């Protein structure tokens, strides 16, 4: 599943959405989660520094 349109969000909001996606992924019945957010390089960097 590929979004036809991606949404750009500021870094902090991107991380927030990613965290939500992660909690959904952790549910037992869930196989895959797709979203329409674009993860910018800055957000990626922030995510890596966080981990």
């Amino acid at each position, binding site marked *: 599943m590929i979004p*036809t*349109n991606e*949404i750009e969000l500021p870094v902090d909001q991107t991380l927030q959405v990613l965290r*939500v996606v992660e*909690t959904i992924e952790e*549910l037992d019945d869930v*196989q*895959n*989660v797709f979203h329409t957010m674009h993860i910018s390089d800055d957000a990626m960097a922030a995510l890596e520094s966080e981990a």
Partner: protein
Amino acid sequence: MSGHSKWATIKRKKGAADAKRGQVFTRLTREIVMAAREGGAEVDSNFRLRLAVEKARSQNMPKENIERAIKRGAGESKDGAVFEQIYYEGYGPHGVAIMIDCVTENRNRTVAEVRHMLSRSGGTLGEAGSVGWQFNRVAYFAIPAAKAKFDTVFEMSSRSSPRWRVSSCSAMRCGRRKLKSRKPNCA
């Protein structure tokens, strides 16, 4: 967190790791069950099943678990629960559209869990079809860059269908419907 007992430490670490692995296995099992139910128990003739089994193997899932899952999907086992696949659609925080692919034996439980997670984060669960139009279903090929020349891959993709796109030097996408007719070329 070591006190006097090493087991206490191991228990804490192993417990967490086991729980995580169990969750991965559950997910893999369900994918296999779905695949086997839709396309039969033959790994050779059921592409989706083969993919699921390969994925499970790569995660070190025991062979018995895989076989049991296939049997369950093909209806050879008496294990009662019937799984079905559903997509839930909704919006996460900041208006991000989210599609959630679920396999469940109890829709009511799943929908409650998903809705709870979404609404807790400031999102909403929408009607079927409210979000789906924002997505395209595509096939995804990852080709090891070391083994393939970029030119060959690019040529193959552009010859096969204009819908194919080479998204990076080692991966390309195409419309899902095209995949069936093109399978012999790219298998």
